[in-house]
C-alpha cells in the first residue's frame, strides 16, 4: 500500500513538473543576444514599374451598373436615357383568375420609378428633370444625337427630390410624387407622376416609352441611378382604362421594366477628353484601365520578408467631379499577362485598394498599400508580376484619373518597400 502511494506521488510530481515551458526573457544586447540580428530595410524602388500602358473600353455606358447623370458646368453634362418595355395593347380585365383581356382605350397617368444609388448630400435642391426621348434608343446614341430632345421646351417636368422628401410622409399629394430613403443602403427611390399628356399612349407603338433624366441642383450635381445590370433599373407603371364587356371601361395598372438603359454625356472641357496618351488612365467613361508590369529585384522576390509595400503614383490629371464622385482605385493582380485582356485574379490577396478623393491636384501622390500582393508574388513565383489599375466598381463614376507613366523618369510610379532581410540562421 505504501509503495502504491509512493508511486502515485512520484507520478503526480512528474506530471506536475513536466511539460511546463517559459524560456522567453528580455535580451540584453549585445552580450546576451544572438550574434545575428533582424535587419529591417526601408527603400524606394524608383524604376520597378516598366512597360506600363492604358486601355479604354472595359465598360461602356449601356453595360454599366449605374446610369450616370451629372451637371458639372465646364466639365461634363451627363444624362440617363431609358427605353421601357411596351405595356402592350391589352390588359387583363377579368378578376379572380379570369384572364380575359381588354384593349387599352385610355391612360390616366403613369409613375416612373428610379433609384438614386449615389448622390452628393451637400447638393441642395437636387432636382430630376424628365425628358421624352425618341423610341429608337440604342447603344450608338450619343449626346449630340439626342440634342434635339434636350431642349427646355421638351422637358416633361421636374421633381425636386429634397422638397418632396421634406413633405409629410415624403409624398407630394398635389403632384403625386414620392421619395423614399432606404436607411440601410442610403438608396433613394424617386417616384414621379406623369400625366397622359406627358407620356401619351400610342396604340401603334403598343405603349412604348423612352425618357431622359437630367439632374440639377443649386451647386454642381452628380448622381448615379440604378441600372438594369444592377437589378435596380427604372420601372414605369401605367394606370390605364381598359375596355370591358361587362362595363364600358375598367381601370387597370401595369408595370413594365427596362428594355434598354444607358447614359450619354457631353465633355465640356478639353481636359477631360477620353483620348489616351502615355499617361496611366483609370476610370472615366468608357472605362479605362492601366496595366503596370513590375520588374522586382531578385532580393525582393525570393529572399526577404515584406513588412510594407506602397505603390506611389503621381497624378498627371486629377479627376473632376463633386465630392460624392470620389472613387476606389484598385491595383488588381492578373492571372496571366495578356495586356489589356489580362484576366484579373480572383484571389483577394492580390487586390489592393485606396480611395481617390475629388479635389486632389496634379502632382499629388496616390498611395496603394500592396504588401499582400508582393507577398503573394513571393509565394507563387510563377505568377505574373503585373497589376491592372482600375476603378471599383467600374462604370459607376464619370471622373477619370491619370498617373504619370514610367517613361516620365522623374515622376514614374515607384514602390516604397519596407522589408526584413533574411536572418542569418545557423550561425552561433
Amino acid at each position, binding site marked *: 500500500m505504501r509503495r502504491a502511494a509512493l508511486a502515485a506521488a512520484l507520478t503526480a510530481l512528474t506530471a506536475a*513538473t513536466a511539460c511546463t515551458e*517559459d524560456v522567453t526573457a528580455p535580451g540584453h544586447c549585445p552580450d*546576451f543576444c544572438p550574434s545575428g540580428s533582424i535587419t529591417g530595410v526601408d527603400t524606394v524602388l524608383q524604376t520597378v514599374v516598366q512597360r506600363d500602358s492604358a486601355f479604354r473600353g472595359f465598360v461602356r455606358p449601356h453595360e454599366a451598373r449605374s446610369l450616370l447623370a451629372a451637371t458639372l458646368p465646364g466639365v461634363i453634362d451627363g444624362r440617363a436615357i431609358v427605353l421601357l418595355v411596351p405595356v402592350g395593347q391589352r390588359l387583363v380585365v377579368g378578376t379572380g383568375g379570369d384572364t380575359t383581356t381588354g384593349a387599352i382605350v385610355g391612360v390616366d397617368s403613369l409613375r416612373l420609378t428610379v433609384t438614386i444609388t449615389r448622390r452628393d448630400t451637400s447638393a441642395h435642391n437636387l432636382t430630376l428633370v424628365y425628358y421624352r426621348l425618341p423610341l429608337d434608343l440604342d447603344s450608338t446614341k450619343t449626346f449630340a444625337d439626342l440634342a434635339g430632345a434636350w431642349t427646355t421646351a421638351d422637358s416633361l417636368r421636374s421633381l425636386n427630390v429634397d422638397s418632396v422628401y421634406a413633405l409629410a410622409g415624403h409624398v407630394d399629394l398635389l403632384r403625386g410624387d414620392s421619395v423614399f430613403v432606404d436607411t440601410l443602403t442610403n438608396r433613394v427611390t424617386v417616384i414621379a407622376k406623369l400625366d397622359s399628356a406627358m407620356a401619351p399612349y400610342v396604340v401603334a407603338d403598343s405603349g412604348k416609352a423612352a425618357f431622359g433624366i437630367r439632374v440639377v441642383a443649386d451647386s454642381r450635381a452628380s448622381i448615379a441611378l440604378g441600372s438594369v445590370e444592377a437589378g435596380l433599373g427604372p420601372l414605369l407603371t401605367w394606370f390605364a382604362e381598359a375596355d370591358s364587356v361587362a362595363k364600358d371601361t375598367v381601370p387597370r395598372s401595369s408595370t413594365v421594366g427596362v428594355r434598354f438603359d444607358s447614359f450619354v454625356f457631353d465633355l465640356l472641357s478639353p481636359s477631360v477628353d477620353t483620348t489616351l496618351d502615355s499617361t496611366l488612365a483609370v476610370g472615366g467613361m468608357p472605362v479605362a484601365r492601366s496595366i503596370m508590369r513590375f520588374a522586382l529585384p531578385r532580393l525582393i522576390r525570393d529572399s526577404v*520578408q515584406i513588412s510594407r509595400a506602397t505603390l506611389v503614383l503621381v497624378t498627371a490629371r486629377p479627376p473632376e467631379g463633386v465630392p460624392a464622385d470620389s472613387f476606389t482605385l484598385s491595383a488588381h493582380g492578373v492571372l496571366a499577362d495578356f495586356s489589356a485582356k489580362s484576366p484579373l485574379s480572383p484571389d483577394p490577396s492580390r487586390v489592393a485598394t485606396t480611395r481617390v478623393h475629388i479635389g486632389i491636384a496634379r502632382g499629388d501622390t496616390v498611395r496603394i498599400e500592396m504588401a499582400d500582393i508582393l507577398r503573394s508574388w513571393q509565394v507563387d513565383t510563377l505568377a505574373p508580376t503585373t497589376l491592372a489599375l482600375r476603378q471599383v466598381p467600374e462604370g459607376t463614376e464619370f471622373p477619370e484619373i491619370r498617373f504619370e507613366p514610367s517613361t516620365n523618369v522623374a515622376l514614374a510610379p515607384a514602390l516604397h518597400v519596407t522589408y526584413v532581410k533574411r536572418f542569418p540562421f545557423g550561425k552561433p
Partner: protein
Amino acid sequence: MSRTGRRLVARLVAALFLSVSLTVRLAAQDSQFSVRGLGVPGRWESVRARTTGGAFGPFDPRSSVADVSLADALQLTATAVEATTYRRAEIGGSRDDLRSSRFPFMSLAGPLSRRFVVGGGFATYLDRTYSIVTRDSQMLRGAYAPYTDRVGSDGAVADLRVAAAARLGSWIAIGAGAHVLSGSSRQTAQRIYDDTTFLGTTQTAVVRYDGFGISGSVALDPVRSVRIVGYARSDNRLRARLGDTETDRVDLPTTLGAALRWSPSPSARVAGTVAWRSWSDAGGFNTTSWSAGAEVGAGPTPFRLGVRGGQLPFGPGTAAPTEFGVTLGTGKSFSGNRALVDLGLERLVRKGGGLTETAWTVLVGLTIRP
C-alpha cells in the same frame, strides 16, 4: 549472458535508438549563457551521479562520463532522467523568472560476459534553447517605428553513445566509446511593429548539427576501498547545416578528467572529480570543472549530497562565466532492487558578464533492471 538476456538487450537498444529518433526535448538545462557561442554543455550524469555534484559520474555505470564505469554494470540496466528547472536571470536591475522541463539523459547497459559490458544512450551535448525579446525602433518613412524582436532557438545537440568496458583484472578496467553528435534546433526570428500598417515578419529554420567523437578511460583500484579513474574524450567538429547548405563548422573540445573515490565502509562513499575541456578550440574559454560528493547508506534508501564548480565555455567579456552548485538527493528501490527511483534537488548559480543566473532543478530518475 543468456540467450534471453541478449534478446532483451537487443530490444532495449532498438527502443533506445527509436526514442532518440523522436523529437525528445534533450536539453539539459536552458541558460541565458546558451545564447552566445555554441550553447551550454550538458551533463552526462544520472540523477544518482548528479546529486553528488557530479563527483560520482566517472564511477556510475548509469552515467556516461567515463566508459569504464560500465564495467560495474553486472546486470541489464536502463536509466532515464527528467529535470524541471525554475530559473531566475538577473542583469542590469531586471529580473526574469523562467522555467522548463527536459529529458536530458538516458542510458542502457548490460554485460555480454562476466568481464565485458556494453552500453549506450543519449545525453545532451550542447543546449541550444533560448528565446530573447528586445525592443527598439527604426526610422521608417520619416518617423520612428517601434518594434519588438523575438529571436529564439529550441533544440539541442545530442550525444549518442555506444561504449564498452572490460575488467582486465581485479584492480584494473578499461573502457572506450564512440559518440555521434546529432541534433537540431528550430530557430525563429520574428519582428512585430507597433504600427500595424507594417506587417509582422516571422522567419523560421531548422538547423541541423552533426559531429563525431571518441572516448577512452581506465579505472584502477590500488586498494580495495579506493578507485581512481582517468578519462579522455576527443570530439572532432560540429557542423551546422541549413537544408543542404553548411552554415558553420567549429572544432570541438578535447576533454581530460580524473576522479577519485574512497569507500571507507560499505555504506559510505566519497568522491571527487576534476575535468578540463579545451573549449577555446570552439571559440570559447577553456574550462576546468570540479565536484565533490558523498553517498551515505548502502540500503534501499541512500542519501547523497555534493558540490560542483567550474566555468562555462561561452560568455561575454574576457573571462569565462563561472558556475557553482549544491545538490542533494535520495533514492528508493522497489521490486527487489529491480526498479529504482532517484530524486534530487540542485541549486545552481551562474555568473558572468553582469548576468547572474540562479536555478532550482528538480530531478527525477528512473532505473529499471529487468
